[in-house]
């Protein structure tokens, strides 16, 4: 660990702190339909969208209507993505003449992008045409992010409103989210990314003649190794920057290229890296302030923010420590940080980022349900790689995905006030609303669906040949690979211990199912909670009310999250990364 590394981490947290309030205020204005400086340009576009789609912008919806609209939209847009993938050969903007995507992979990818997971069992540069990338995948980066955000807003409205059954209009919220929030920021951010070297074009791939041709061993057609001369390099092109911006800002994480944000064309400089990191946390952090503002308790918003920032800091510290130690099994290699080299465990990390920027990215992307990566988790030290896994297992509530982080966190808030209520022997209340059996049941359902999905699928995969055959790292590390795959899928993260060969019928189908379960069986209980809370009266705060502001509440919230997570996943973790760590320190190689 170096001073320079810590400085970058501290600076990042400071930047996130500073954008929380402006972003939160702006989001509250957009969804409360207050005036913003963008109105003169966007209001006519907004009206045109409603006219073209036949939406009555004045009409609000009950929670069930809201849920049906959300499901209908997800279903339709997922089908369109599947169709684009399956027909890309005949569609325009395919200069490399890439074939149609095979059915299992196309279905898995469609599910993955619709659920904001962006789990990828393919390399974009050799699988997806430019049209599929931008009109299919990047489009879903926009709308799956917007769906997450508007659901969080619907839940916040449920908390803030009283004695009503209306939560807002799904189509209006989506339109305003896309036009006012996602598109303008991405337009600016993508141009800044281009200024750093992220590419943006529709050229066919470039053939480069290497100045130092060389020979490599490659398996020949008959399986025998042959020597092959490499004199050329094919350099891929494409509309990358426009997708890169929304990939981070919408916490989607699906890379244009296989190497994701480690690829120099997706993330060429330390500044592009910093910008991508800031984009990931911008909305999730801002939404905590939106929560406070819309419910009339800004201090509650900051209490939630504090709990998140604390868990983030613990995570980044743990993984930075683990990675900067290097790999004790490498002998005769200098892994110390100095002014001339980053040092640490550099397997699977880029020289321009070193260990500090890599672990910061790893922590942020898994806290936030983003799943973009600028280093490969499979090659992290056991404890360094456990942090991203734990971040996902805790429910991705540390800032979390856009919208998903906030509604996930509110589930834990409900649980925390329920536990506090039990301890003091009073009916629990949350911002004036009584928390009753129905809300607690729905909150537990949301928590359990994640747990059950992860553990059951992992258990099947590690006991069946079709699951085990995809494991590529022997020993306890193999269990971590599988556990991570289902955690990432059910948590809609999309990052991977990427050695696992996930492009098999079993993994394509089971991870897609885990993603759909983790997304929609989480969303529906949450909308039910929103609907139920909206209908309640608000009781004035009394002396016996457990306060949801201040350090005591933040502490209780952190404790609830950690205890639920630890009780559920400690056994699995101890057989995976913890065991691997102990054996690594004992010098064991698998």
């Amino acid at each position, binding site marked *: 660990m170096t001073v320079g590394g810590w*400085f970058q981490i501290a600076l990042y947290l400071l930047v996130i702190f500073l954008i929380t309030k402006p972003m939160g205020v702006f989001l509250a204005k957009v969804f409360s339909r207050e005036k913003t400086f963008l109105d003169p340009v966007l209001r006519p576009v907004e009206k045109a*969208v409603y006219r*073209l*789609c036949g939406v009555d912008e004045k009409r609000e919806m009950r929670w069930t209507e809201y849920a049906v*609209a959300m499901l209908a939209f997800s279903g339709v847009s997922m089908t*369109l993505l599947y169709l684009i993938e399956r027909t890309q050969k005949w569609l325009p903007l395919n200069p490399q003449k890439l074939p149609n995507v095979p059915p299992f992979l196309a279905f898995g990818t469609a599910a993955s992008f619709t659920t904001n997971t962006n789990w990828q069992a393919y*390399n974009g540069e050799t699988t997806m045409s430019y049209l599929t990338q*931008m*009109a299919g995948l990047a489009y879903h980066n926009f709308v799956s992010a917007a769906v997450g955000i508007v659901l969080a807003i619907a839940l916040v409205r449920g908390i803030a409103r009283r004695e009503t059954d209306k939560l807002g209009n799904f*189509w209006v919220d*989506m339109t305003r989210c*896309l036009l006012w929030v996602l*598109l303008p920021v991405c337009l600016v951010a993508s*141009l800044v990314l*281009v*200024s*750093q*070297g992220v*590419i*943006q*074009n529709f050229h066919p791939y*470039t053939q*480069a*003649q*290497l*100045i*130092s041709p*060389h020979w490599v061993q490659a398996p020949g057609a008959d399986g025998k190794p042959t020597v092959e001369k490499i004199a050329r*390099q094919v*350099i*891929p*092109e494409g*509309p990358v*920057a*426009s*997708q890169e911006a929304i990939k981070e800002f919408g916490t989607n994480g699906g890379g244009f290229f296989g*190497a994701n944000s*480690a690829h*120099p064309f997706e993330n060429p400089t330390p*500044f592009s890296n910093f910008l991508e990191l800031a984009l990931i946390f911008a909305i999730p952090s801002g939404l905590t302030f939106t929560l406070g503002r819309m419910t009339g308790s800004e201090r509650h918003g900051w209490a939630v923010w504090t709990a998140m920032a604390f868990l983030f800091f613990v995570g980044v510290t743990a993984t930075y420590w683990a990675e900067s130690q290097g*790999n004790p*099994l490498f002998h005769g*290699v*200098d892994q110390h940080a100095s002014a*001339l*080299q980053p040092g640490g465990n550099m*397997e*699977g990390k*880029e*020289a*321009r980022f070193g260990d500090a920027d*890599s672990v910061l990215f790893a922590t942020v992307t898994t806290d936030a349900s983003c799943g973009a990566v600028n280093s*490969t988790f*499979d090659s992290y030290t056991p404890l360094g790689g456990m942090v991203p896994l734990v971040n996902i297992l805790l429910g991705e509530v540390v800032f979390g995905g856009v919208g998903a982080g906030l509604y996930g966190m509110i589930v834990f808030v409900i649980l925390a006030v329920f536990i506090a209520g039990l301890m003091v022997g009073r009916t629990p209340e949350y911002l004036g609303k009584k928390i009753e059996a129905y809300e607690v049941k729905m909150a537990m359902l949301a928590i359990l669906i994640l747990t059950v999905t992860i553990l059951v699928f992992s258990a099947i995969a590690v006991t069946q040949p079709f699951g085990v055959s995809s494991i590529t*790292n*022997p*020993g306890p590390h193999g269990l971590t690979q599988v556990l991570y795959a289902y955690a990432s899928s059910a948590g809609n993260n999309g990052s991977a211990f*990427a*050695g696992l060969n996930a492009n098999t019928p079993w993994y394509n189908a089971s991870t897609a199912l885990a993603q759909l379960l983790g997304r929609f069986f989480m969303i529906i209980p949450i909308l039910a909670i929103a609907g139920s809370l909206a209908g309640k009266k608000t009781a004035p705060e009394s002396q016996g009310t457990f306060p949801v502001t201040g350090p005591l509440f933040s502490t209780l919230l952190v404790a609830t999250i950690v205890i639920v997570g630890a009780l559920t996943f400690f056994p699995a973790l101890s057989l995976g990364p913890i065991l*691997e760590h102990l054996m690594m320190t004992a010098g064991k190689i698998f």
Partner: protein
Amino acid sequence: MKKTLLVAVRFTLVTTVICGLLYPVGVTALAHLLFPRRASGQLVERDGKVIGSRIIGQEFSGPAYFHSRPSAAGTGYDPLDSGGSNLGPTNRALIDRVEADARKLHEENPDAPIPSELVTASASGLDPDISPAGALFQAPMVARARGVSEQEIIALIHKQTRGRQFGFLGEPRVNVLELNLALDRLYPLGAKVKASSSSAPHGTERGARSDSQSKAR
């Protein structure tokens, strides 16, 4: 229900046009107006031929060039198969690979400790950079092959080193392609070295290559 489905279809089509077509096309137009070279991948030309991208790493062989990091992208630095090794920290395949590479490097330069990134594969497999320590470690080998003093090579490395961005972001680094192009420009390979360097089939047809300026497109 039927009405909702109809709205969903219309909404999908309208937003696909806005977010999936107009937005990326608009960004492309603005990008080419503002940063045409960067939007096209910073391709580097020499003698009228594209020889690579400034920010995509490539393999260099022989003692006359600085070498890039090990790469797990395809057979090495294949941009159509970008990615890392994904070998776990306790995987024997990783430990064996690192030890074999370390042995080779020690033969070239037995005195210095081996900087860790020279024996580890990057996440993209296309890392264009090495650390200053990684370049300095290779200086004696390159100096011998080019027949110049080690001091001159070390001075060139220092000149080519990029510090942290704005002084505090990222890590100091050296772009391997740029460093090697500077080598070819300043200390051209003599005829003797060229003949023994079996890895330069274009060397003869491009006799004047050492004098040619590399330029970026």
